[in-house]
């Protein structure tokens, strides 16, 4: 088991955004979290990745209790994430975003920097290589020297994924990677995630686009009001009455057009 949470809670004032969530993901798995807006999915990510402290409960990552650790420590242990509202380094180029993404894999310090040590040179070479490879992988090579803030939206989403990959994580958390993408772009994203899976990466993603979820997830977890209300294979979950009621809604063929007489 790669990641496991037990009775995880996060409250904001009186609001229980995440409530007693028991969750686990195994190495190599692709799991999707779905749930109504405001059901605590993003908050769950924030707590697991250490951006926010948990109110109660525990998080175990690679067999180690990381509940009390801060985001940077958790990243260093091999977890990477993307953000629902894109958080690239806006004034750095695409390439530099990836170089910074490699931070936690670096070892060089002040003195290496000052004296341009062999270690630093080796590290720089490796970083450059990785950056090239990742840009290629997400199809952003033409954008490598553009500032992140000037990239089109879809490209920014892919760059965020690439940046998360740059730290060579074992587990990657993707928060609504397909938001704001049109169906064709979603297809490309699907392929990208499939290739990540082939590489053996463990993927946990939040998504509202059911097409993506159905196509890629091996297991789906459903949140509602901060609690896990269902879990299972995509097709089971999709027809779970609780999930249909809270999230998907009844199948209606078309919208009701009551145009003016």
């Amino acid at each position, binding site marked *: 088991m790669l990641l496991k949470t037990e009775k995880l809670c996060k409250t904001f004032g009186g609001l229980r955004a995440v409530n007693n969530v028991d969750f686990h993901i195994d190495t190599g798995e692709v799991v999707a979290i779905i749930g109504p807006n405001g059901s605590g999915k993003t908050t769950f990510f924030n707590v697991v*990745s*250490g*951006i926010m402290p948990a109110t109660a409960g525990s998080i175990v990552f690679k067999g180690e209790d990381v509940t009390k650790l*801060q*985001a*940077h*420590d958790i*990243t*260093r242990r091999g977890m*990477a*994430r993307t*953000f629902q509202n894109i*958080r*690239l*380094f*806006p*004034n*750095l180029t695409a390439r*530099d975003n990836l*170089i*910074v*993404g490699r*931070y*936690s894999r*670096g070892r*060089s*310090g*002040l003195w*290496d*920097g*000052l004296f*341009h040590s062999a270690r*630093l040179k080796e*590290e720089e070479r490796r970083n450059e290589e990785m950056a090239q490879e990742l840009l290629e992988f997400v199809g952003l090579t033409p954008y490598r020297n553009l*500032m992140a803030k000037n990239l089109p939206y879809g490209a920014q989403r892919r760059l965020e994924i690439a*940046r998360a990959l740059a*730290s060579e994580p074992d587990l990657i958390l993707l928060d609504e990677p397909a938001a704001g993408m049109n169906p064709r772009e979603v297809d490309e994203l699907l392929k990208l995630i499939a290739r990540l899976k082939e590489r053996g990466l463990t993927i946990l993603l939040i998504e509202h686009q059911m097409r993506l979820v159905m196509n890629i997830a091996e297991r789906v977890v459903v949140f509602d009001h901060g609690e896990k209300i269902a879990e299972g294979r995509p097709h089971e979950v999709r027809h779970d009455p609780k999930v249909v009621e809270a999230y998907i809604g009844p199948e209606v063929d078309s919208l009701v057009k009551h145009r003016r007489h």
Partner: protein
Amino acid sequence: MTTLATLLRRQSLVRFAYSPRAAVVFSAVILLITFLDSFIDAPDYIFSPYFKHIIFVSLTYSIVTLSLNFVSGYVGQTSLGHAAFFGLGGYVSALLTQLYHVPYWPAFLAAGVVAALVGIPLGAPALRVKGPFLVVVTYACGEVFRFIALNLEVTGGPAGLPGLVTPSIAGVSFTDVGATGKELFIVTALVFALALAFFMSRLEDSRIGHAFAAIREDEIAAAAMGINTAYYKLLAFCLGAFFAGLAGSLFVHYLSFVSPDMLSSTESIMMFTMVVVGGARSIPGSFLGAFLLTFIPEGLRYFKDFVHLPFDPWLVFFGFVLMVMMRVRPQGILGADTVFRR
């Protein structure tokens, strides 16, 4: 104003400023001015001790401006309290040499170290407070230091401490060398400034530099990249304070005098504007900012006498230029085009 703007936009100028050649030319000019009168009979007004004095002051402020860049440039935290470190360094080495008769150079180092240590609690608010709030916190911290210096017995109160020792190397006092006694000070400041500039240029491209850039751009994303943001913010404050402290020490022993005015908020604001005018994160910009804002007021004095102005126009002019500058070139004269975040 527009012609100035177009001139500034001319990339060749900026590119030259960033080349290593610029550093060589710069040092050559400074050294020439400093030492030429030892060999030839040069006109007074170029090689006067006064001119050399202004050069030394400019160099000192270049160091200070560079050091403020750690905080206000690299990690992008506006600090209006930097003079506190500059003055603190001055007071530390003044007190060590005067009260405890510590030799100058150990006291010099101690000045930097103490300033850096004080930088930790002063930088701590930056971990919790952001943007406009940090501006006032740093400003207030600087003021608190000034009040302490004003009120303590040991710091000599408002009058400060006179009669500080002159630094010496191998038994030779700085003031005994050269035509005016300021030469060694200038050389020391120049070497120090260039070394710091070199250090910073190397740092920019190192892993630490990456961490600084990430924090400046987006703190939360930086943390998600595995960067310990608290550590690096404090590091930036410490590094900035350390170098400012060293500069302060050199400066007060040059003047042979230290007073609370060194810690004033006006000084802090001036330092910050040196960074902004030259261009945040720009190493040649730091030199340019420091030299411009030291030389212009002196030049204006001559102008004032020349046209018989009944008042000193500098600060009025300065305020005006800042306003115009923000409209024409907000990133500073030698700044990259995207210094500021919205």
